């Protein structure tokens, strides 16, 4: 198994290379540079700014320069936030995104699996429809609508929680963003769970179990649950990544200092190094998460061996 893990990790290198090359080219092709500002700067200043960030070199040299830094673990200096290096910016933003994304994903798995199971066992009944009505909230309402509604209710009307902001991992500030992300994730997990459990429940080995006269609870818990979880596990990887990256909306609605915020600001400021740094980070995270999911698969399914 370890050699498999090693091979997978090794595989990330070409992936990252391709991804950053594409992003690199796209960034530089996009009109408007990092130093195009409302107040047009004089040519001398522009030349110096460009020299400072090696933008005066031919594109391929800049690219090599960037790769060289990357090899040494240096993501470079931010163009926009001139006082910070990309490493520093990422190091501050990542824990925020990981905490919010990670915790909400855990909660979503519990709730989603529960809702999916209830719905599946009462397929096509009123309970099924109702459960999925609630479960599907997240995939039927855009997050930028759910978010402000949560703020309206819990921060402005009830005054229970702050309407946004961030205070050193204080729980009060994390509740609403986590709730929003949970809404989104629950609907995916719930639907996958429902579908897969329905499928498992109609398979031959469950029929056999039923024929033996086992009670439904035993059948579900002891036989059906584990195989039904397989598809859920397979969507966890993409969901985890999107919990971090697609948190753009969550983070702007709640004014959080996470990765999503940096991505959008970086792209609109043409902060080349910041954007590339984030791309590298997210790609690595994504590959690792997918690896974890595959290993979890192996734990659940004895047929799969690496």
């Amino acid at each position, binding site marked *: 198994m370890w050699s498999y893990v090693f091979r997978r990790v090794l595989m990330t290198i070409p992936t990252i290379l391709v991804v950053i090359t594409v992003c690199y080219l796209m960034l530089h092709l996009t009109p408007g540079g990092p130093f*195009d500002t409302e107040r047009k*700067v004089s040519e001398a200043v522009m030349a110096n700014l460009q020299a400072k960030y090696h933008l005066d070199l031919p594109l391929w040299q800049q690219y090599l320069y960037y790769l060289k830094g990357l090899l040494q673990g240096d993501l470079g200096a931010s163009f926009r936030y001139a006082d910070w290096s990309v490493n520093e910016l990422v190091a501050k933003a990542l824990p925020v995104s990981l905490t919010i994304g990670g915790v909400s994903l855990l909660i979503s798995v519990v709730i989603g699996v529960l809702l999916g199971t209830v719905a599946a066992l009462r397929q096509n009944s009123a309970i099924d429809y109702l459960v999925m009505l609630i479960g599907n909230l997240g995939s039927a309402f855009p997050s930028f609508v759910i978010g402000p509604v949560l703020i309206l209710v819990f921060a402005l009307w009830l005054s229970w929680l702050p309407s946004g902001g961030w205070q050193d991992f204080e729980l009060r500030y994390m509740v609403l963003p986590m709730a929003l992300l949970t809404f989104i994730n629950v609907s995916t997990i719930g639907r996958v769970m429902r579908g897969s459990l329905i499928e498992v429940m109609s398979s031959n080995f469950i029929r056999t179990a039923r024929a033996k006269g086992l009670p439904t609870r035993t059948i579900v818990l002891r036989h059906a649950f584990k195989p039904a979880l397989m598809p859920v596990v397979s969507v966890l990887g993409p969901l985890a990544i999107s919990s971090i990256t697609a948190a753009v909306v969550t983070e702007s609605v709640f004014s959080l200092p*996470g990765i999503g915020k940096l991505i959008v600001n970086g792209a609109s400021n*043409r902060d080349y190094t910041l954007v590339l740094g984030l791309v590298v980070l997210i790609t690595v995270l994504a590959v690792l998460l997918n690896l974890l999911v595959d290993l979890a698969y192996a734990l659940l399914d004895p047929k799969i061996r690496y």
Partner: protein
Amino acid sequence: MTFKLSRSAISASVLLALASGAAFAAKVPAGTALAAKQELIRNNGSETETLDPAVAESVGANNLTRDLFEGLTATDADGKVVPGVAESWKQVNPTTWVFKLRKNAKWSNGEPVVASDFVYGWQRFIDPKTASPYASTYGAFILNGIEASEGKKAPSELGVKAIDKYTLEVKTPYPVAFLPDVVSNLNLGPVNKAAIEKYGKEWTKPGKLVSNGAFVLKDWQVNSKVVIEKNPQYWDKGNVQLTKVTYLPVEDGFADVKLFQSGENDWVYQLPPATYEKYKQELPKDIRNAPMLGLRYYSFNVKDPVMKDKRVRQALSMVIDRDLLAQKITADGQVPAYGVIVRGTAGADVTAYEWAKWPMAKRVEEAKKLLAAAGVKPGSKIKFTYNTSEYHKKMAIFAASEWKSKLGLNTEMENMEFKVLLKKRHDGDFQIARNGWVADYNDATTFLTLVQCGSDQNDNGNCNPKAEELIKQGNQSTDPAKRKAALTQAAKMIMDDYPMLPLLQYTVPRLVKSYVGGYSTKNPMDRYRSKDIYIIKH
């Protein structure tokens, strides 16, 4: 301020700041009960790009450097020039100024602030290696400033000199009556050479930043907050009420207001569009609104095949009903504008088109004639470019609707990201483009740069050599009245060429908690020092 100053500044007259600094600081009206907790949370609109005063560009960054650092002069809550580190100054001849520094000004590490700190700060600011976006803007008022900012002269040749430890001499390339106003900008503030050399790029970080303002940096969490605290070393600390100020970087206007309503924020950066009337009714004690020195306008690309005809530009400008726009569309107290100079600007009078007073029907009729004469038929297409923003979008739809309903022109609206718009504007790749300008300092020249020949800020591509000559003559004049007449006439001449379509003068509608004292609605530059702010008992 500048106006008062220039009137008495005839030739080499002497002007002394009349009182010692103490009289200018946070004036808490007698009888005001102060709150026990003097802490303020204000939104700064976005994450600051830097805390280095030399390179600070955005409004937000300048708000912070204004609290952390103090220049030769400062502006108080009403926008008046007051002494800063300099306790007095005089114009010893038309192009030479002498600033006397106070002896009790200290850095946050306890060392005294001396004239050479300013010399170092200014030379560093102008040095092309520092690459400050403002180098040429303020460099223009200091002898050899432009040349130094372009690297044609060494920074050491900049017209600033330490006569002794507490005397600073500044030379200007021509008589600059409003220099005391210019040097209140923190781009021209002092910086601590020892700290910069010790920490290098890291010098602006908490625990390392050495500053001389009323506040010191306590904490800086990117995209979360910047916290500053009262500076115990500050010379005028007795007049500083606030003990702590937290700056938030919230960009979304609606999120900003929600933080305000839930008590997480005392000071909204700017109200989102179309909400002013609502909050005026709901929160009458908290709403504040004041005009500022800024102009919303549309640039015509005078090199465009259609727009190169002045008659077309004039027709397009004539039919926009600015009153309706201000009252109904933006509905936030903005003032209609018909010239490049806005109300409250020193150094020139507001000019307006003659047709501004005509009834709309007559304006439309005239505009139709102009279009017909230029050969532009109803049904023709024009292209309007703007950047993504609810505010700009509403104004654009309004303009397009005016052009369509009154002139029969079809407007193709092109909405793009801000950076792309900037690029297109600077490259002259547009027909009509949204534009806007907020004064860097209170003088007409800041607005004239928008329409002057070959100016970096001129996106229209127009040039009126006669007006250019007038501006040059005006600037050479030591008589403020003559200068004002010349600049006003130049502004009118240029505007009669219709290089741009002036729309509205900016206002800053925002919510500030009623218990925040010291906020004035008479501040034309919207520049507040936390030094002047206090919390009333509530």
